[in-house]
């Protein structure tokens, strides 16, 4: 079940989504009609299944056709995976920031680090380490950079 928190920041309509996007998700009902500037916060989207992907693309393609300027913010790993898997998942929108998965080399805690896409492009696949929030150990990026960051090269 997906939930949304809406707010208006000047001319930008902000939508904060949380939950899973599945066959019972009706984005047109939850998000309403396309707006000129839409900022979609994806931090708390934990899973999206194939029907959810179809629903997502159908809705945001509609927004794209209506001339909306779409920005995706704080994309969760689930959303980043879809951005990589499906060429047109963004539907003409801009990915502004994404979460990167990290794993502590000492206590194995899973962490997520938020990065701006513009900064990631500068890093050229050489990702920094993070400090583990649990044991202060060194947390390393835990995925295959060329796969997880494939969308940067599009």
């Amino acid at each position, binding site marked *: 079940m997906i939930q949304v928190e809406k707010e208006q920041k000047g001319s930008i309509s902000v939508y904060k989504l949380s939950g899973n996007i599945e*066959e019972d998700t009706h984005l047109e009902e939850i998000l309403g009609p396309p707006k000129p500037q839409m900022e979609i916060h994806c931090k708390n989207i934990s899973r999206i299944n*194939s029907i959810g992907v179809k629903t997502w693309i159908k809705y945001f393609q509609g927004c794209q056709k209506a001339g909306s300027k779409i920005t995706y913010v704080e994309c969760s790993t689930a959303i980043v995976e879809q951005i990589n898997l499906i060429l047109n998942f963004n539907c003409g929108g801009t990915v502004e920031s994404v979460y990167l998965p990290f794993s502590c080399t000492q206590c194995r805690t899973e962490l997520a680090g938020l990065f701006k896409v513009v900064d990631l492009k500068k890093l050229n696949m050489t990702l920094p380490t993070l400090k583990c929030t649990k044991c202060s150990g060194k947390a390393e990026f835990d995925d295959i950079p060329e796969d997880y960051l494939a969308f940067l090269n599009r």
Partner: protein
Amino acid sequence: MCCLSKTLLLLSERADDKAFADEICKLSELKIQVVRRAPEAIKLMQEASPQVILVDASTQDLYSTFEGAVSNSLGLFSEKVHPNSIHFLLDSTMSEASFIVQSPLLGSFVKRSSSDPAGAGNHYGRIIRAGLKAKSFGLKDIYLEEAKVQRIEMSQISQKSKVLEAVKAYLLAAKWSMRPTSRILTSVDELLMNAFYDAPQASFASSSNATTPALDLKDLEQKGSVLIDLAFDGKYFGIAVTDFYGSLDKAKLMNYISKGFSKSEYKVKTTTFNAGIGLSTVHQTGGSLLFLCEASVKTEAILFFQKSDKFKDFRNQFRFISTQFYF
């Protein structure tokens, strides 16, 4: 004339394939016969019927040589050639090896493990061992005494969230970390959707409203519910989803699995409820898939995932797509 009825035939020059095959033989009590050239393999296939045939199909040339030799000497549809017994070994994923997707000989597609071929053989050997039975279904046949199999019965799609929660709890209790767990749940979700919405294709095709599921409980009650079995031996997690339609089509299946949308646009079809990307998603998730189908009786889709400390190892795990069709 030699008797190869309990033999595994390996057509490969590679040492890692030999290590892989040796482990399979150990587990399934088969004798290994290694040949390096396709004509030698054909000769052995003609003389007797090896129960398992592993073929190095790393390149299109290697594959075509084997297919050509089979076609010229035995015939692609000869009773000496049964796709259930043929396993192609490659270094690439199925989406990267399009030449194999529509092969009439394709029974199983194995992406080699570069780090541990013997370990991979040990796991795959269980699939082979189970497949040696006249009809093999169920995780019990695969794990034998190595893991306890638990069962969940589902009678309607509205129970899906609860089932996924149960699978999640099972994995977290077994100390799986969150990200692989999420990925596994996505794959299980897709298999459940397939079992409920895609298996009875004839009924579904008549749906006039393509935006909502055409089928509900009353359609499923005719042939029973969907069964979910799960087991974990400490190394590999297996989950089987069984429906009682037996309507799987191998060519369509392979097409769906190998489809990719990272280089070409995904086009939304409004005439169907399903998205057409579910199986591709499952494949991309990183696990292995085994499909067992008895025509008009039942289909069992089994997923296997290897537990790893690091997610990048989870992504690089040994993988296969295997099918067994019974008529």
